Each structure stands twice: as C-alpha cells, then as structure tokens.
C-alpha cells in the first residue's frame, strides 16, 4: 500500500520536502511520502484513515494516541512519522480479527471498561504491551502500566478489571 501524504500542500509555490518511509502497520506494509514534521498520530489518522488512534491532549499528557512501536507502547503524538521508518506499528485496529474480538476488547465489554470510549484505544494498546510482556500481572501492575493513560469517565476501576479479565482469558487460551 502506498500513501502519498500531503498535509498542507505547497507553501507560496515552494516545494515542501517529503521523505519516503516504509513501515508495517498491523502487519501491512505501507510506503508513505511524509513531511518531516508530520506526527505519527496524524499519519495513522489522516493519511491511513486509522482513526481508532485518538488525539486527545496533543501535549504528551493523556495517552489516547498510544500505539505500539516495535512492541513498546508510545505516544504517537510525540513521535514524528519519519522516525517510524522501518518499524512495526500496532494500532487498536489490529487487535480484532475479522470475526473475533481480542480478549482485551472483550474484557472492556464484559467489565464495562468504557463510558465515552475516547481513551479506550490508548488504554488497550498500553494494556497490550503489558500483557505481551507479563501474562499474569497483578492489579498493581495494571494500574502502574496504565498510569500514563488518562480517563475522565470511569474512575479507572472497570478499566483495571477489564485488563485483568483479558489477562485471564489469554492465559486460559494459551493453556487450552
């Protein structure tokens, strides 16, 4: 898939330098022409239409834009798209298969882990990084791992339960 991403077009007729990057997003190879100042969050949302990655605060505070870069949870509003060249990006759209929700998504459904839902994709991606690293986290581990993600609705209780629910489901799946 190739995207020619033009953020603001030319400025006063001057050519805006673009750089070609090759990334994998949810397992798909993507070649994009991006201006250096384009943020990874904006490439995903506007360039690729992956609007599950939300931009909340845009100031490195809220974590709604959390994605995985080579398996590490990072804020995609605080990384330039050019820096993702050669990297593997995971977004919330990569969690479910065509027919089945990911256990994290199921957990948020079962345990009422969302209200308005704005922070949810970031919560899930931060939780995914945790569960990939530690399949049996304690409640304290979950709270620690999600401490960079803000939620204004739930009071966090059900989010923590949702992640623990998913951990349990993933463990029973891998045991079966």
């Amino acid at each position, binding site marked *: 898939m190739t995207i020619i991403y033009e*953020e603001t077009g030319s400025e006063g007729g001057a050519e*805006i*330098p673009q*750089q070609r990057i090759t990334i994998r997003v949810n397992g798909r190879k993507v070649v994009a022409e991006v*201006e*250096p*100042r384009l*943020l990874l969050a904006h490439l995903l949302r506007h360039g690729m239409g992956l609007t599950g990655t939300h931009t909340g605060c*845009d*100031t*490195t*505070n809220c*974590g709604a834009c*959390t994605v995985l870069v080579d398996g*590490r*949870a*990072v*804020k995609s509003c*605080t*990384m*330039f798209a*050019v*820096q993702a*060249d050669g990297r593997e990006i995971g977004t919330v759209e990569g969690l479910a298969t065509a027919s089945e929700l990911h256990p994290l998504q199921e957990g948020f459904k079962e345990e009422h882990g969302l209200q308005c839902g704005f922070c949810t994709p970031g919560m899930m991606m*931060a939780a995914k990084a945790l569960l990939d690293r530690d399949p049996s986290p304690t409640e304290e581990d979950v709270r*620690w*791992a*999600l*401490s*960079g*993600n803000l939620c204004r609705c739930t009071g966090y209780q059900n989010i923590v339960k949702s992640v623990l629910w998913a951990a349990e489901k993933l463990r029973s799946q891998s045991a079966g």
Partner: protein
Amino acid sequence: MYPSRFRYEAARSLDQAVRLLHDGGDEAKVLAGGQSLIPMMKLRFASPELLVDINTIPGLDYHHVAPDGSIHVGALCRHADLEHSELLGSRQPTMAAAAPLIADPLVRNRGTLVGSLCHADPQGDWASVVLALGGSIVAHGPAGRRSIPAAEFVLGPFENALAHDEIAVEAVIPAPRGAPAGGYLKLERRVGDFATAGVAVAIETDGSSVTRAGIALTGVGGSTIEATAAEEALTGRPLTAESIAEAGRLAAAAAQPRSDHRGSATYKRHMVSTFVLRILSRIEGTGAGTAERAA
C-alpha cells in the same frame, strides 16, 4: 498542533551527526527520545531548522558497569530500560529509585536519561540524581570527546554546556568508594506531572561512617540545587537520627521554592526536609530508622 517546518536527517554514525550539527549551526538540534523536544516544538517554544535524529545510530542504547565500577548510560538508553534494570537494582539505589518516577510509562519507553540532562529543565529528575551522584556527561564533538561534570553541565534553565556541534553520548556515574545507599522521592499531583518537590540522596558508607554524601533538589528553585551544607552535615560521621534531622533542616534551607498552584513555598520546603529524612531513615543497618519519627 504542528511544529514549524524543519529538515530531518537520520544520522547513521556519531561522526555524521556531528558533521550535520556543525554545518547546521545554532539552528540544528539533536533528536533522541523527543519527549521534551517534540512537545516544545509543537508549542513553538522551539523551532529548529534541522533535526538530527540519533535514534538511527547503532550502539548507543546501553547501560553497563565498567571494570572500574563506574556506571555508563548511553544516549539512547530509555528511562524504561533503567526502570527494569537488574544492574541498577543491585548496584545503584538512587538511580533505581528515580527511574520508575520519571514521567509516565509511555514517556519512559521513549525518553532518555542523557536527553533529560541535556534538556536542563530545573524540574528534571535525572539532573538531581546525577548531580547527587557526582556524575559527568561525555560530549562527542569534531575534536573528539570531553567529559563535563554534572555540576558544570547546566548553565541555566534549558541551557547546557554543549557546543552546537557536540553530542552528549553518555552519562557516567563514578564508582562508589564505599557501600552506596540512598534514594529518590518526589511529590507530584499525578503521574507525569512536574515535581512539586523532589529529593535525590546518594551516600556511601564504610560500614560505620558516611564517607560521601550527595543531596540534590528538584523543582524547588530556578535550577537543580545541590544541598552542600546538608551533605557536609552527614559526611565523616555515622548516620544517626540527629545527623539525619540536621541534614533535613539544611536541605530545606537550601531550597528556593516559590509558592504556586502546586503548593506554598513553606509546604515545598517542608517536603524537602521530609524526603531527606524518609530516604535516610530507610537505609538499613545504620540505626537511623527512627529519625523520621523523632524529627
């Protein structure tokens, strides 16, 4: 929010990065973790014309102990690497205590200790830790390498001692001569907020007396503050409830806090004293366990 336009170069080697910085002059900036620089660029507090990305330079993501016992932290060692480091857990209690308190887990996955030192924010946690430990920063420039003591590295808020074509390639924590002890505590309103007050304590003991003491304060002045009188009050004597209480008082006196939305100056000063007491009282085997209660 978008930063101003800039040219981006992904450096493949330190020498290439230094050349790019040299040619770029004052308008060039190094991009490492970017967790302070990118927000500042988005807010247009910083508008560099050239960004030299060093993330693409191999071999800078290390932290290790040299044969002489000194700890070396490479320019691309992330806060999270230090948070999960067994090496620090067993050898360097002040750094091990500070690493999990830097920003939040997502920022810790990108941000770097060396970048935090270069950013020279008076609210930066690592600046206090490295200052208390008597560390230094290694700069790589066109003429080779030089070592800059942490105490001389910060010239003012957001201003460091690097020349425009130098890159900070590692931080070095000297080998302890005695048994290292200490910690880092900070008060923050929520995870990821700037410190209301933070205290780094790093001491070395020979079993009975304190042979070296380093105490530095975060967020209670226009720069990172070394509490030298408090350090002197601890050095050359056993750690006792009295010496700890004295160090707490002197550290609070060294603080220069301002009243703001995070708390009054009096409150911040009190927190500095409390943190000094708390860190020192928790040090095992010194008979100092009751100091916080006694004070």
